[in-house]
Structure formats: structure tokens, C-alpha cells
């Protein structure tokens, strides 16, 4: 019942729906078919149950929250981001179009996860703490906020560019005005900033309980700090009056940095976060 094969089938079903949703979103933008956006949202909604079921099966199979190795980490992040997107678009329908960026990213993350090793690994003693769940939860929320704000920043730049050329896509024209998109992006980046902060703080408490120090300059810790500082600088620059296109490009640069911290940095260094990416270490 909880076999890896069943999990993989469920994940592939999910990837299928994400792919379908991505097609709907892209076609709706490219061919000015506004009606397809709702099918994009429906596909993302359909992608959620099989992904959640697969993760629950993995949880039952391993006896711990999926959090070890690329298979578990990428899929749980993908599921969290998907849930975050579904809630965000239900509360604020204007962010639906961000699915153009969010959904392919979820598909990519799930794909990377299920292409990785599904081997069971024993959880190290230092992971037997609820701080792991808290840390992962806020990392997922941060990622959700970052991806939606990335989607909004991309839409802002595309819409801004088209407006400047005087040839606006009718679908984009129906989206909120540029200043509203800018504001929404700002709110989601503020949300991501808070979530990264809580993720770092919960990691610090966990590290203190495990190793007697709240900060060890572990490369992943350090990259998280750099991301947080970059977000802090970006938000202060906004307070100083930087907005519009400059702010959107700056925001994209910060997002790239954060994405690297999440998914690039763990491959550059042997760190105490190794368990997250290859299930070894410690």
C-alpha cells in the first residue's frame, strides 16, 4: 500500500496535472485565451491530492516527516508551494496568473525529487525534534512566497514592457494595474522575508538544542543569512522610494539568490544539511 511504486505513480499523476496547468497558463498568455486560466487553476487543484497522498504514504513508510534526501525534500517543498499557491489564489484571485511561473517550478521540483534516490535513510538523532517540522514549514512558506512574488515580478515586467510599447496583451490588460502588481509583489516579498527570518530563527533554536550553538557559519546557514540580508536591503530600498521596473529587477536578483540558497548551495559544500540533499552526513 505504502510502496515506493505507488508513491511514484501518485507523484507522476501530479506532475501530469502540473504540466497540464502550465500549458493552460502559457497558452492563455500567449494566445490571449483568458478562459484557460481557470483550467490552469483547476489542474493545480487536481495536482494537489495525489501529491499529498504520496507524501503521506512516504511519511507512513519511513515513520518521520519526509525531510531526508532529495526525493523527500523536493517533493515536500513542491507540495507546500502548491498548497500555498492554491490558498493565495483563492484569497487573492489577482495572483492566479503567477501560476505561469509557480506551476512549472512545482513540476520541476517534483520531477527532480522523483528522479532522485528513493532509498530509505535512517533519521539521525538530532532530527528527532519538532523543530525540524517548524523549520521545514517556514522554509516551505518562504519558498511559496518567493515563487509567487517571482511570478508577479515577471508579469509586472512583461506587462510594463508591453504597456511601454503600446501593445498590451488583453489578458494582461485584465490583470490589476502595474502599481497594484508592484504592491502585491512587495507584500509577498515581505511575507517571504518574515518566513525566511522564522526559518533561520527556528534553525538557530534547533542547532542550539543539538550542538549547543545557535549559529555555526555552516554554508547553508550563511547563504540563508545572505538571502535574508539581501531581502532586508531590498525592502529598505523600497522604503527609500525605489519602485517600478528597477524594484522588479532588483527583486528578481534577490529571488535568484534565495533560490540558489535553497537548491544550489547544498551541492557546493559538504554541510551538516547534507541529509537534506543526499541522505548522508552527520
Amino acid at each position: 500500500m505504502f510502496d515506493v511504486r505507488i508513491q511514484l505513480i501518485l507523484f507522476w499523476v501530479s506532475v501530469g496535472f502540473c504540466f497540464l496547468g502550465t500549458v493552460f497558463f502559457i497558452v492563455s498568455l500567449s494566445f490571449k485565451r483568458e478562459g484557460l486560466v481557470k483550467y490552469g487553476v483547476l489542474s493545480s487543484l487536481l495536482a494537489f491530492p495525489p501529491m499529498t497522498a504520496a507524501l503521506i504514504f512516504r511519511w507512513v513508510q519511513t515513520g518521520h516527516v519526509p525531510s531526508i534526501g532529495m526525493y523527500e525534500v523536493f517533493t515536500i517543498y513542491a507540495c507546500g508551494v502548491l498548497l500555498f499557491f492554491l490558498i493565495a489564489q483563492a484569497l487573492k484571485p489577482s495572483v492566479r496568473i503567477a501560476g505561469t511561473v509557480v506551476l512549472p517550478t512545482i513540476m520541476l521540483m517534483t520531477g527532480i525529487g522523483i528522479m532522485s534516490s528513493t532509498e530509505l535513510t535512517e533519521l539521525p538523532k538530532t532530527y528527532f525534534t519538532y523543530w525540524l517540522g517548524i523549520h521545514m514549514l517556514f522554509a516551505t512558506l518562504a519558498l511559496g512566497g518567493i515563487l509567487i512574488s517571482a511570478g508577479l515580478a515577471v508579469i509586472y515586467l512583461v506587462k510594463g514592457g508591453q504597456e511601454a510599447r503600446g501593445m498590451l496583451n488583453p489578458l494582461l490588460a485584465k490583470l490589476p494595474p502595474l502599481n497594484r502588481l508592484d504592491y502585491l509583489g512587495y507584500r509577498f516579498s515581505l511575507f517571504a522575508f518574515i518566513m525566511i527570518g522564522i526559518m533561520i530563527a527556528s534553525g538557530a533554536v534547533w542547532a542550539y538544542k543539538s550542538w549547543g550553538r545557535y549559529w555555526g557559519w555552516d554554508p547553508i546557514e550563511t547563504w540563508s543569512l545572505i538571502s535574508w540580508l539581501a531581502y532586508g536591503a531590498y525592502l529598505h530600498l523600497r522604503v527609500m522610494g525605489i519602485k517600478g521596473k528597477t524594484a522588479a529587477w532588483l527583486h528578481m536578483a534577490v529571488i535568484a539568490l534565495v533560490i540558489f540558497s535553497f537548491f544550489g548551495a547544498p551541492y557546493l559544500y559538504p554541510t551538516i544539511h547534507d541529509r537534506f540533499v543526499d541522505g548522508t552526513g552527520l
Partner: protein
Amino acid sequence: MPGKSVLTGIWNTVKSIKAAVTLILLIAAAVTVDVLLLAKRWDPDITSTGGLPAGIHSNRWFQALVLLLLVNLSACTADSLARRLRARKINMRGLGSAVFHAGLIIILAGTLLSGNFRVLGTIKLVQGEAKQIPYREITSRDAARPGGPHFSLILKEQRVENDEWGDIKEIYSAIVLSDSSLAGSEQELAEQEKVTYRGLYMFPSSYGYAVSLDVEGPGETPAGRLSIPMETTEYGEGIKAYHRDSFKMDFLPYNFSFKFYPDLGQESADGGRLINRSQALGNPGLLISVQDKGNYVTEKIIRPGESIAAGDYRVVFRAAKPWTQLSSVYDPGVKPVFAGILFSMTGISVLALYSKPN
């Protein structure tokens, strides 16, 4: 007045958001360069035992940048709060911002305290032997800080729990902590579980064996009794070696090397090299090599009760005992940092709820 305008200029610079952004970017840039260079020298084992890699964070100029940011944040927060109070414009957004920045100030102060006063150490306890720990010395970077209070630690017993394949699943160390004002309190600690004493945080971080030796001089006169902790080297897959190289005893002119086997066996039934059949004490054996000024004297593997001759002396292997090493951390910055985290998280949540577009 030119003096006043200079002071006003300095104050305006110190409290400016531009200065804050500049400092944040400078710190971020310094940390980024450091973390890129870190790839060459990073050892995750250092951090997992509580240590820190050498890096820019220990440099005075980096700490000065953090201090400048602390001053800037304090000035910004105080100025903003004062302006709001004067204008009677205290709202939730302003309050959230003030609490968030106050939290950051406390965190920065805590990190500076940690950076300058955190002390890391190790305490090795051999089963059955009491050890007096000089509290003042172990909690200070100044090693010459004598005087009380002292406390004592005894590793009463080390208990090994094996899994179904016979490999070590968990090691528990029953540790008794006492001082002159306290009755001894006993705690059984698994790896990474902590015992604290007046802000000093101690947790088992590694394990091994110590061998007890009796040394007899000419005519079987007792020359000394020693307990020598072996060093534990791990080779992965649960394979460990217990050894001590180039060990010198005060009363003997020789250099000793020891290799300890908790459960001695041979690779195959008809001989082969010596191996450890398990990590638990079963059939202990001690390989002793004796050297005199670099020249090999003798080498022998002995069991408890057996001895090896070195010149006119005889070294008797009495027994083997387990040891537990505690990693100790004394960090006066921890409480401010966690208090600051609470403040800043509360503040930023309020700020986010009441934020408006700019």
C-alpha cells in the same frame, strides 16, 4: 555654530536608512566572499561538535561593521520613535517597526557577546573516575582564571544499546554532577542530550575506551598507575579504531604506542590480521609498541592481567574502561539572541499586518 552642524551631520548620517542599507550590503558582501572561500576549508564535523570554522566573523573589522549596524539601527529606531511621539502619530505599523528593529538590536548585541565571550571546550570522563572541573576557567577565554567554584563530574556507567544486527544503536552515559552546595544529581544522557550547570552547557559528543596500566620498576616495585584514554578514529560504516600514539610516561624513558581492541579476534579461523569483532567490550586486547629514541624495542598484544617488559620495567594491562567526551559550550550571548528573535518576530508580524504600499 559649525560644531553643532557637524554633530547634526553625523547624527543624520548615523540615523539614515542609506547608512543601514550600505552596512547591510557590506556585511552581506563580506559574508558572501567568506562563504565562497569557505568551500575550500569547510569541515562539517567541526560544526557538528560545536566548533566554528575560522572566518571573517572572528575578525575585528567584521565585528566593527556589526557594531556600526547596531549603532545605526539604534539611532534609526530611537529617531523614528521620537518623531512619532512628538507628532503623536503612534500607530501599529510604527510600533511593529520599532519592536522589530529593537529585536534586531538585541540579536546583534547577543551575537557580539557570543563572538567575544563564547567558550568551547571538551571534558573527557573515564567510567568510575571523578573529575574536578574548574568552572571559572572553563567558562572564560582567559585560561589563567583560577579559583572556585569547582564542580565534579563522574561517569558512573556507560551503557550501550545495540540494534538487531549487533551494531551500536545508542550509547547512554550516566553522569553525576555535584558541587559543594549541591547534592550530586545523576542524569543518563544519550548523545547530544545536555546537562547544564550555571549556564555551562555540556553534551556527550564522542565515546571510546581508556586502558588502566600498572607500571612496575626493578624488583616489582610499583612505579605508577595510569588511566590512558585511547583516541577514537571512525572510518565510516561503524568501523572504529582505538589508539594512542607517541605516549610518554614521566617515569619511563620510552615512547609508547597503543592500539586497543574491545573485542579482539582474527580475520579468519586460521589466523590473519587482528580485528575488532564488535565495538562492545568482549575479549579486550591491547597492542603495545615500545620505542626508545625512535628505535623499536618491543611489541606485544596483551590481555587484562598480562604484561610487557620494557627494559627493567614491566607494564601490566589491568583493565579497560569506557569514556565519554562531553563538549562544553558557555555562551552569554544565547539569551539575548533568543529574546531578540522573539521581539523581532513579534514586531515584523505586526508590521506585515499593518503595512501599506509605498
